[in-house]
C-alpha cells in the first residue's frame, strides 16, 4: 500500500482528479516523498474529506496544486484545507469554479468573492463570513443614522460589523 502510494506520487503531474479521504500520519507520510512530487498541472477536481488532518506533508501535497491548474471543483471540508485555498493569490482560480465547498472556521476575514463568481453551480459553506449587500447596507445605514447617531451624539458609524 505504502509503495503504491509512493509510485502514484510520481505521476501527480497527470492527475485530473484527486480525492483524499484520509492521509497517513506524519511519521509515515514524511517517508512518502511528497516534497519531490511534481506540480498537479492538469488537476480539475480536488476533494479533501472531513477526516483529513493537517500535517507538514499534507501541506506539501497541497502546495503541489498550482494556481495555473484548470480547477473547476474544490471540495475542501477540513478548515485547514479551506484556509489554504481561500487566500488572495487563489482568488482568480476560485472565480472560475463550478463547485466550491468550504469550511471557514479558521478564516477570520470576510469572504468577499461572492460578486466575482460567474460559473458557480454548487456552493456549500460552513461557518463562512459572507457579506451583506445593498439591502442591508441601507438598513444598517438607516439604523445608525436615525437611532444610534440620533440618541448618542458621539456615536460613530465606523464598523458595519454584525
Amino acid at each position, binding site marked *: 500500500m505504502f509503495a503504491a502510494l509512493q509510485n502514484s506520487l510520481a505521476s501527480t503531474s497527470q492527475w485530473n482528479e484527486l480525492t483524499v479521504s484520509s492521509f497517513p500520519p506524519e511519521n509515515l507520510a514524511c517517508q512518502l516523498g511528497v516534497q519531490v512530487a511534481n506540480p498537479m498541472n492538469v488537476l480539475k477536481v480536488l476533494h479533501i474529506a472531513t477526516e483529513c488532518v493537517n500535517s507538514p506533508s499534507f501541506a506539501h501535497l497541497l502546495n503541489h496544486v498550482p494556481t495555473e491548474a484548470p480547477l473547476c471543483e474544490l471540495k475542501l471540508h477540513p478548515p485547514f484545507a479551506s484556509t489554504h485555498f481561500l487566500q488572495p493569490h487563489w482568488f482568480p482560480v476560485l472565480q472560475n469554479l463550478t463547485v466550491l465547498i468550504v469550511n471557514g472556521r479558521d478564516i*477570520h476575514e470576510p469572504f468577499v468573492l461572492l460578486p466575482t463568481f460567474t460559473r458557480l453551480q454548487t456552493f456549500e459553506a460552513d461557518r463562512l463570513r459572507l457579506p*451583506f449587500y445593498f439591502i*442591508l447596507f441601507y438598513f444598517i445605514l438607516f439604523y445608525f443614522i436615525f437611532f444610534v447617531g440620533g440618541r448618542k451624539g458621539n456615536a460613530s458609524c465606523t464598523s*458595519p460589523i454584525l
Partner: protein
Amino acid sequence: MHHARLPFYEPNTNLPLLCTLRKLQLRACSVQWMAGRQFPCLEECSILLPRHWEVIQQYGVQLPFCTKLAYHGYPMTTAQYFHVPEMRAMHLRSHDCNEQRVYQHLRHLFRVNRRTYNLTTLHLAFQCSEQVLMKVVKYLIPLQELNLSITHPSPSFQQFLESLAAKPSTDEWPGWYSWSKYHERWGHWCSSQTWHVNVLPHLKLLHIRCPKGFSQSERLDNFPLLRAIGWTRAYLTSPLKHLKVWEGRGSMDDTAVDYTSTGYLHKHLGISSTKHDLTIVRAIVTHCLAIACPLLALYSTALFRQLRYLELTWESNYEIFILPYLEQIETLKISDGSIPEYSLNLDLPLTHTLQCLELRFSTTSWMLGRTFKALREFMIFGPPDEPENHSRHEGRQVDLPACTSLDVMYCSIDYHRFLSCSNVQILRWSKHPFQTFDSAAFNSLHHFLFNLSRLQHLDISFPQGLGIDSLIDFVFCGAPEHGVWREIRSVEVEIRFNYSSSEASHLFDQAVGHQQRYEKWWKSFTVTKTYATIVNTNASM
C-alpha cells in the same frame, strides 16, 4: 458566524452567481446577502443555523425553480420567507426546546404555505407533541417520503402511528380456524379487501429516528403498531416500500428495523416464525387475538390494550397477569388459566368493557367483590386444577347486573352462591359429576333459581342424587304456580343415572305420572328416556 467583520458593498452589487447557482448550502453563515434576491437556477437550497436571518423576514428570497428546501434554525417560521413555489422536498429541523412554540411554528408554517401541500418528501426533526403531525399530514396528499426525527416521543406518538395504518373495507373478519386453514383464509380475506387510509395515501418511505433512542418498553409498545402500518399499507394501490426505524441512540451500529418485513420478530421477541407475525397483525387490525405464548411478552403494548377479543389457551395452569392491560376487551376466553387476585383498589378496565367471559378450568376468585357492568354472557366451565379456597372471600359476590346468559358447567356445587345476577334470562347449569349433591346443595340451587325472576330459558343437568324429585317439582310446577319466572319460555331438565336403569325408570314413571299436573302450567310437556339411564324432561310455553 463568529467574530464577523463584514465589508460593505456598493448598492446594487451584481452577483453573477445568482444566475449560475444550482445548489446552495450554508451552515452557520450569514444569509442577509440573499435577502431580496432571486436565484433563478437554484434547485436545492439548505440553510442551516443561519446568522442574520432577520432581514430575510423583511425582504424574502425568491427561489422560483428550487425543488428542495432545507431549513434548520430558530425561529423555524423564517422558512416561510424563502418563496419556493416548485418545492417538492422540504427538510425542517428545530432545536427549540419549547414544545408549545415548536408546535405553533410548525402549524403556522404549514398553514400559511400552501406550497407544502404539493410536497413529495418531508423531513422533520423537532421536539414537540406528535399531535401536530396528525394535523399537518392530512393535507400532504402527494407525500411519498416522510422522515421523522423525534427527540422525545410523546403519548400522542402512538396515536399518530395508529392513524397511519390502512383499514380494510369491511370489518367482517373471518373466524378462527386451525392454524394452517386460518392463515390461508386470512390471506384470502385480506386480498379481497379494498384497503384505504385517511392520511398520506401515497407514502412509500417512512423513516423514524429517535436520537436519544427508544427505551425497551417504548420499543415493545411501538412495534405492533409499526408492523401494522408496514403490513396493511402493503395492500394499498400505492404500497409502502420501507418503514425503517432506528431505535438505538443513533450510533454507527444502530441498524434500522424495517417493519415492512418480519425481521422485527427476531429483534424484539427472538423468534422467527411468520405465524406470529400474522397473529400480531391480525390482532392489531381486528383487535382479536388467539394467543401464542411468545406474544405474551407484549402484554403491556398497544396490541393488548386495544384488543376486543382475546382467547388464551394454555397446556397447563399458567399465571395470567395481563388483565389490567386489557383496556378495551369485549370478549375474553381463558382456558387453564391461573388469574391473580388483584387488590380491589385496582380498578380493572375490563370490568367496564367486558361483554362476554368464558373461563374453563380457570380461577374465578379474582372476580369476587367486583362489578362487571357490561358483562352479558358469562360461562364458567369446570374448576381449576388447583381448587380455590373461596371461604376466605365469604360475603363477597361477583356482581353481574347486565348478565342475561349464564352457563355454570361442572363447577363446585355451590359456586352459584357467589353470583349476583338477577337479570339472567338464559341459564345452563350442570353439576360436577364427582361431587355429591346433598340437600344443602339442593337448597342453595333452589334459592338461586328462585331469585332469577327474569328467567326465560332454563337448561339444567344432574347426575342422580338427593332432591331430584323436589327440584323437578319446583321447576315444572312450583315455580310457574307461584309466578317465580314470569317470562319463562322453556325448561329442560336432564338427569343422568350412572348404572341403575331401574332408578331411571322410576323417575321416568314418576314424571309421566305427574304429567297432567305439569301440563297445567305449560303448553307442551314431554318426558323421554335415552340409553336407559338418561331422563329428559322438557316443557315450553
